[in-house]
């Protein structure tokens, strides 16, 4: 394996490892969940991307043919990290945030989505089930 390829792979592994470490260090350093959410969803994703690109280069040089297997994981993580962050923030807000005290008014007819019942005003989903049963 040529020297400069080894150098690039090693650099990518080291940078990826450092980003993963920083991402997880943010989890114990930051003091609340909502700031804490930033560390793993951003830094860890970049770190994993670096490690996966290193893996891709390594197997390309070693086997002699180029595969994009690892890009599949990268793509999947890049697509799913924002969704998980959004869902975790919603779960946290539902359990720990008081919409009357901690949140500004939404200035709309509806309140904030997490705290509102599904459907328009006066809609009770349990009535639908009752109609189905009878």
């Amino acid at each position, binding site marked *: 394996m040529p020297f400069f390829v*080894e*150098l690039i*792979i*090693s*650099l990518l*592994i*080291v940078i*990826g*490892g*450092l980003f*993963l*470490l920083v*991402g*997880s*260090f943010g*989890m*114990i350093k930051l003091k609340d*969940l909502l700031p*804490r*959410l930033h560390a*793993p969803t951003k830094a*860890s*994703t970049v*770190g*994993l991307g670096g*490690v*996966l690109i*290193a*893996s891709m280069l*390594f*197997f390309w040089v*070693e086997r002699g043919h180029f595969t994009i*297997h*690892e890009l*599949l*994981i990268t793509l*999947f*993580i890049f697509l*799913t990290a924002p*969704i*998980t962050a959004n*869902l*975790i*923030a*919603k*779960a*946290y807000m*539902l*359990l*720990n945030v008081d919409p009357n005290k901690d949140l500004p008014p939404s200035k709309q007819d509806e309140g904030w989505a*997490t705290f509102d019942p599904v459907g328009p005003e006066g809609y009770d989903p349990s009535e639908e089930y009752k109609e189905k049963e009878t």
Partner: protein
Amino acid sequence: MIEYALNFGFVCVALALLMNLYRLTAGPTTADRVLAVDTMAINAIALLVLYGIGQATAMYFEGALLFAMFGFVSTVAYCKFVLRGDIIE
């Protein structure tokens, strides 16, 4: 040279996993624990990929892909359970 970089990467990922474990046990709210497990899944993927480079085999790729998919699905399922009291409505 790759061996040294791999060792450094292993140490980094192991420390990151320990930090996640601390947040998993000490986290004051449920959402903290869900976040810790999600990050642990990401770190486990990195560990598997690094081990695959060290052993020079592509066999661990499928394991890493499974970790990526099930980490996401389990996080979404738990958050949905907290939000709606049910997973499949």
